């Protein structure tokens, strides 16, 4: 085993999971809702790529973004907006319903055997050969992770809509009293979640080119666990948690002997249980936070 290689691979998978976690955390921030349907965006994006294999790659990529963002906004508009103000359990169940309904749609439309996709499969080649074999996809994943996370941070910290989202995530009632448009910030969170899903679909199909109806769900559940372990109430802790679980999954996958690999997920969750026992409030919570009641 090559330690450097293991770490590089871990960084790349961690970056992908971090992107999923960002989408989950942004939506959670403004709606206090864990959006299980987010995985279906990734699946939809991946199917889009598999259905357009004879298109020019750039057109495939564009369509993937359009589908993911469009579906994300549509789900919010159709399924979640009418439930605004309903009990949290109701909306949570609604996200399950949307996820399972879409999965059924994929199954009926595309069958259970899976469809090949991977417009960027040429990235699955070695870019730098040496003591570390660095594939293009690894470099692209890490770069995409950095750019998108950096971009999200810039939007949140430097733009008015970002400021409104941060305010709404803290105290939506007061944000509305200041004139923050509820539908605008919520839709914007779903747009970003859609962008992240499109990127994940594009990059994940490089390594996992067979698209099945649970393609996105699996990634999303693991990323969600990571985000919760990190601390879902703050964007950076959720992102770090998503990254950490992706990293751990990749490293464990490398470390475990091939015969044990089917237990990979079990090992990851074992790790999660241990972490939650040690830090029940979240892996990264409690740092850099000062809550002081003032009179």
């Amino acid at each position: 085993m090559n330690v450097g290689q293991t770490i590089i691979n871990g960084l790349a998978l961690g970056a992908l999971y971090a992107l999923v976690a960002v989408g989950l955390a942004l939506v959670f921030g403004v709606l206090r809702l864990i959006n299980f349907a987010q995985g279906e965006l990734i699946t939809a994006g991946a199917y889009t790529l598999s259905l357009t294999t004879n298109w020019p790659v750039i057109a495939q990529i564009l369509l993937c973004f359009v589908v993911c963002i469009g579906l994300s906004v549509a789900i919010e508009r159709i399924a979640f907006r009418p439930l605004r103000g309903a009990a949290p359990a109701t909306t949570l169940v609604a996200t399950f319903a949307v996820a399972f309904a879409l999965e059924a749609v994929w199954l009926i439309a595309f069958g259970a055997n899976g469809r090949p996709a991977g417009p960027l499969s040429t990235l699955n080649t070695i870019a730098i050969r040496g003591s570390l074999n660095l594939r293009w996809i690894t470099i692209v994943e890490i770069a995409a992770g950095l750019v998108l996370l950096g971009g999200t941070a810039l939007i949140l910290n430097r733009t008015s809509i970002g400021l409104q989202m941060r305010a709404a995530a803290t105290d939506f009632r007061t944000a509305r009293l200041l004139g923050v448009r509820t539908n605008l910030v919520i839709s914007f969170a779903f747009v970003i979640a859609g962008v992240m899903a499109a990127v994940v679909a594009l990059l994940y199909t490089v390594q996992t080119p067979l698209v099945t109806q649970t393609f996105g769900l699996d990634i999303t559940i693991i990323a969600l666990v990571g985000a919760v372990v990190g601390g879902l109430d703050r964007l950076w802790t959720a992102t770090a948690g998503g990254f950490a679980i992706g990293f751990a999954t990749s490293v464990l996958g490398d470390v475990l002997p091939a015969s044990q690999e089917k237990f990979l997920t079990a090992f990851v969750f074992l790790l999660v249980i241990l972490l939650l026992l040690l830090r029940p409030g979240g892996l990264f919570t409690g740092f850099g936070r000062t809550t002081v009641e003032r009179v």
Partner: protein
Amino acid sequence: MPEPALEVEALEVRYGAVPALRGATLSIEKGEIVGLVGPNGAGKSTLLHAIMGALPIAAGSVRFEGRPLAGIPTERIVRQGLALVPEGRHIFPDLTVDENLRLGLVGRGSTDGIAEDLERVRTLFPVVHEFRGRQAGLLSGGQQQQLAIARALVSKPRLLLLDEPSLGLAPSVVETVWNTLGEIRSTGVTILLVEQRAQITVGFADRTYVLGDGRVKMELGPQDADDTERMVEAYFGS
């Protein structure tokens, strides 16, 4: 002929089956500072939130400069020129002072004159400028209250609603806050001031309504502030 800024007529608001306002009627003329006092649970905060569209109106009407507000969402009401400084200030503790202030800009009806308005607010509340980069949660209570008022002002309201701005503040700070209310009024902003401290409110405002049991029970003028008998009657009379 005085022009009404706000007219509330026979307003009823319920929390589920529990009535909080049972036909409250009051009106405010442009340029006035009007006080609203009453015991806990009288419906003062409910009235403010109903005016802002944050609570559904069961019956009655609210008009701002002649236009009905009922049924309009909060975010649009803000853009029409109303602002509420909520009880407990509700600044965003994790955001910086300047970010809190800039959130007030979101509710502006127009983007003209932002720089001038920010400048004026910074002159009115020097702490807002002095601590602009600081996390707002680290300000003292009085500073947070000034920030909350400053934040409401940069949305350029023509009617400012304040919900117990003196709550939990040291007396000297209260005086500072109230002095600025006078300055704010002098710039042409109409003010509705909800307070627990009846006597000083009655003495300070042009007129003061006494709210009890979801209705306006009485209207007092500054001359009534020292009339203990009348104050007691306002609070405890039927």
